[in-house]
């Protein structure tokens, strides 16, 4: 025989054995103590009591319901011992151990990621993202970008690229990573909480990007940090390269180009004289150049971002793909331009000019006469003979020393002098017209002096298309000619009986024979 006690549990009446009652009440008391630090303890306890009542009413199906010790123990094993109510009971101790292990084992920056911060944005949140990453005031970052933008223009471009390349922190986990907080459930909860408090905006979770979280660090710390250090170093190098490349593009597009020999004329201008007239002009060339460079630039920037901030993702891959497509487009444009320029060198044309020579002269003197050029800038190039050739550009004309002098015997009685202007063109007619546009001066006097201009010139509008002048002096056998030393660079394969080099012929007196010139002593 056992004494029963009536109890009210969860609003229900139960008859309990005395010992069953003792077990239950000590269990509930233990729970009450265990949950002391838990918020809403009373509610939890009443929920538990209700559940126990439910279990009891299942066990003791009959009426009146009598609850035994066995029933209580069954309910207890379903619900669990107080310690099974888990870490829930000790929230304080758990969170403190968590945070201390973090600060000791991992530096804050390790888990930090570069994201755009849409919560604190003016344009795209790039600056705020950087501020988060480096833990500096966003105002400082904005000022740096503004200064870069206004003084070099590069800040704007950089901003746009970073805008495209940096993912926006969308999910709470990304927002935490952006600020260097670990993405624990507790923190995520807080972030979502804040979000609710701040804005009533809905988050676009559909587009939530997957981020492969860096797995928790294991033992090989030293190697890891070494590798990371190297990665950062290369990241910096790539970033610098990318910046230089970007700056180069900007200078090319907006600047005055690279100055040659302190001259005030840019390479762009020189190039403009080389590029075809019409649709394939400078604008086309620069567009192609910039397009070609965009691929490497974006690739370098992304590589730098990846090494420096461990960023990677679909957005970047898409951006890189787009940039590479643009680069291929630029290469195609360049190829078309090259083909077009090549076509303008396809045909050759020439115009022959005769110069009147004075009568009664037996001994000639051939000398170069410097051409007067008003203003202009000089450029020097190495041509294929390894000789330096000079070009002078004035506002509308090109001066060039492309003159070749030859001396040949003639069977006629009188000497003659003629110069042939030559040029290339897309058609024979175009080439001939261009050759006709070449201006060149030869002057003679009655004493037998022949002064040859040292520069030919033509209109810039004609472009560089192989314009040159061949000057030939035909002498009857027996006449003499003195070659002035200054003709040395202009003589071209002049045939002579002693097989002297052209350079050795200048500065001497020669006699014309039917075999060519012979030195006259």
């Amino acid at each position, binding site marked *: 025989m056992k004494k029963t006690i009536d109890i009210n549990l969860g609003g229900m009446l139960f008859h309990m054995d005395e010992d069953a009652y003792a077990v239950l009440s000590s269990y509930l008391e233990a729970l009450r103590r265990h949950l002391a630090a838990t918020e809403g303890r009373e509610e939890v306890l009443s929920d538990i009591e*209700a559940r126990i009542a439910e279990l009891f009413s299942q066990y003791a199906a009959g009426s009146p319901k009598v609850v035994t010790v066995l029933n209580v123990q069954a309910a207890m094993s379903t619900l669990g011992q107080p310690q099974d109510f888990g870490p829930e009971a000790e929230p304080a101790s758990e969170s403190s151990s968590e945070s201390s292990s973090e600060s000791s084992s991992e530096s804050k920056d390790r888990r930090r990621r570069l994201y755009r911060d849409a919560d604190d944005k003016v344009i795209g949140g790039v600056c705020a993202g950087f501020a988060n990453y480096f833990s500096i005031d966003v105002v400082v970052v904005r000022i740096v970008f503004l200064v870069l933008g206004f003084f070099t223009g590069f800040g704007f471009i950089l901003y746009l690229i970073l805008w495209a390349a940096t993912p926006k922190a969308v999910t709470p986990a990304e927002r935490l990573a952006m600020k260097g907080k670990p993405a624990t459930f507790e923190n995520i909860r807080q972030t979502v909480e804040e979000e609710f408090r701040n804005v009533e905006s809905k988050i676009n979770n559909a587009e939530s990007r997957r981020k492969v979280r860096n797995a928790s660090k294991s033992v090989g710390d030293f190697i890891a940090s070494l590798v990371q250090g190297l990665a950062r170093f290369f990241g910096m190098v790539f970033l610098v390269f990318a910046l230089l490349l970007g700056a180069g593009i900007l200078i090319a597009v907006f600047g005055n180009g690279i100055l040659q020999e302190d001259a005030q004329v840019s390479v762009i201008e020189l190039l403009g004289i080389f590029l075809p007239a019409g649709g394939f002009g400078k604008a086309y060339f620069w567009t192609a150049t910039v397009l070609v460079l965009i691929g490497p630039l974006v690739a370098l920037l992304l590589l730098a971002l990846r090494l420096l901030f461990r960023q990677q993702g679909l957005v970047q891959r898409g951006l890189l793909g787009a940039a590479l497509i643009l680069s291929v487009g630029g290469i195609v444009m360049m190829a078309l331009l090259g083909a077009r320029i090549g076509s303008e060198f396809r045909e050759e044309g020439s115009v022959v000019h005769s110069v009147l020579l004075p009568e009664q002269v037996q001994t000639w003197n051939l000398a170069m006469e410097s051409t007067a050029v008003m203003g202009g800038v000089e450029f020097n190039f190495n041509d294929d003979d390894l000789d330096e050739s000079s070009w002078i550009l004035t506002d509308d004309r090109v001066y060039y020393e492309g003159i070749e002098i030859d001396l040949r015997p003639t069977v006629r009685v009188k000497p003659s002098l003629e110069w042939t202007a030559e040029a290339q063109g897309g058609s024979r007619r175009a080439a001939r017209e261009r050759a006709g546009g070449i201006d060149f001066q030869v002057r003679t006097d009655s004493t037998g002096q022949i002064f040859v201009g040292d520069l030919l010139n033509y209109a810039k509008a004609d472009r560089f298309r192989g314009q040159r002048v061949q000057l030939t002096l035909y002498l009857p056998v027996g006449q003499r000619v003195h070659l002035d030393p200054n003709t040395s660079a202009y003589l071209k394969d002049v045939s002579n009986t002693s097989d002297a080099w052209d350079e050795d012929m200048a500065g001497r007196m020669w006699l014309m024979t039917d075999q060519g010139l012979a030195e006259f002593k």
Partner: protein
Amino acid sequence: MRKGVLELCALRVLGRGEAYASGISEALKQADLLVVEGTLYPLLTRMKNAGWLDYRWEESKSGPPRKYYQLTEKGRILLEALNSEWTAFVDAVNSLKNS
């Protein structure tokens, strides 16, 4: 971590529709995720107080009225956030296993 996972699991169960405490614990037990029911009660109460869950009373034939919990709008957002975080985490761990 365990606590967080349990929390996510409870939220997922509730994501399928409203449920009462024993129902949730039943689902978790079937998935071998929960050993004893008791763990769940403080959790549910705390999540309710945080505004992730809401509940209504429903009469029961076999005992006292039951609390039927359901996700609030806020709770749904949390669930989605935790879900994607969990997927990323599992992917990360699995990627280690496979390589």
